[in-house]
């Protein structure tokens, strides 16, 4: 026979997991919409940083940017693997196919090291580059990576390249 002593620990652990699992599920469904909205708002705020006075239209994940009815640029969100996991990068391009601006939407890089790829001094280097120019100095290009964070810097370069490639293909 299994005694009360053996059952109690198992029962408590099972109940604890069930209760907290339920709480997690509830919180998730309660906040899912708000988190999505917050991320959307964040995305549009970031878009406005690349194209300051433009209005945006979304089409299958691509964004077109308009100023007084004139098309001034395109943008797309790219996912890339960084040093600390998923990195979401917003890449903007001008109609002539050069980079208009790059912003990091979210990342899991090490604070103080890899996370410094979000700083303007690193990101502004991409502006005006053509697809062939998006290469790190370490790999024979012109873009100076963040000191001590080559993996994170390379991830951003990869993201910008694939974003720009997608945009060029989509523009046609």
């Amino acid at each position: 026979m299994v005694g009360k002593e053996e059952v109690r620990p198992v029962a408590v652990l099972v109940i604890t997991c069930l209760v907290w699992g339920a709480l997690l599920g509830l919180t998730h469904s309660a906040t899912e919409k708000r988190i999505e909205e917050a991320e959307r708002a964040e995305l549009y705020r970031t878009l406005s940083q690349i194209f300051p006075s433009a209005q945006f239209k979304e089409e299958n994940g691509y964004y077109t940017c308009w100023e007084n009815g004139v098309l001034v640029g395109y943008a797309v969100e790219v996912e890339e693997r960084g040093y600390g996991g998923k990195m979401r990068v917003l890449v903007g391009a001008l109609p002539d196919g050069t980079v208009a601006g790059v912003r990091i939407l979210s990342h899991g890089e090490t604070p103080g090291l890899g996370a410094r790829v979000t700083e303007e001094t690193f990101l502004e280097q991409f502006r005006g580059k053509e697809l062939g120019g998006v290469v790190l100095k370490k790999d024979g290009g012109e873009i100076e990576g963040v000191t001590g964070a080559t993996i994170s810097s390379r991830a951003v370069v990869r993201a910008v390249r694939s974003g720009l490639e997608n945009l060029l293909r989509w523009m046609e």
Partner: protein
Amino acid sequence: MRLQEFTKGILKKNPVLGLVLGLCPTLAITTRVENALGMSLAFTFVIVLSNLLISLLKRFIPRDVRIPTFIVIIASFVTIVEMLIHGYSPSLYEQLGIFLPLITVNCIVLGRAEAFASKRPVSETLLDTLGMSVGFSLAILVISFLRELFGTGKVVVFGYQVIPGILSSPPVGMILPPGAFLVMGILLAVMKKAGVV
């Protein structure tokens, strides 16, 4: 008498420099004073509330499964807080978001649950975790201050230059992982020599 439960965490049983716990987040984030401030806030919030919860529930938690139960409580609690902040305060999430998941693996939280909260009344747990929070915050602030100062030559907090450039070519190794071990080791040695811990 009971105030000692608060003060012990600051020097004598300082979680980082005395108990030598929570080294993973300590070494990882102390590259800038700004990060240490964010981590201190998030840490205080999580350790105080999760340990109060454990202290309240301690009568129902059987000894044999206490560690897994603590981990379930702490990890779920942190995740719930993360989701709530993300949904309801995106700007706060931007500042603290990257620190919250790191706290789940901070063994100080589990350590205090095991060594203190699961055995003591709620009021003492509150004092203990507040003391630990002050001690942890002080330790990571000092470490990050030294690393940022020598690694970058200056200290900048939220755009304000606290200490202007003092070194023309600072040794960048100080903000890289070796610098963390170096500063940590020197501080430990100083604390030992001074007889504080």
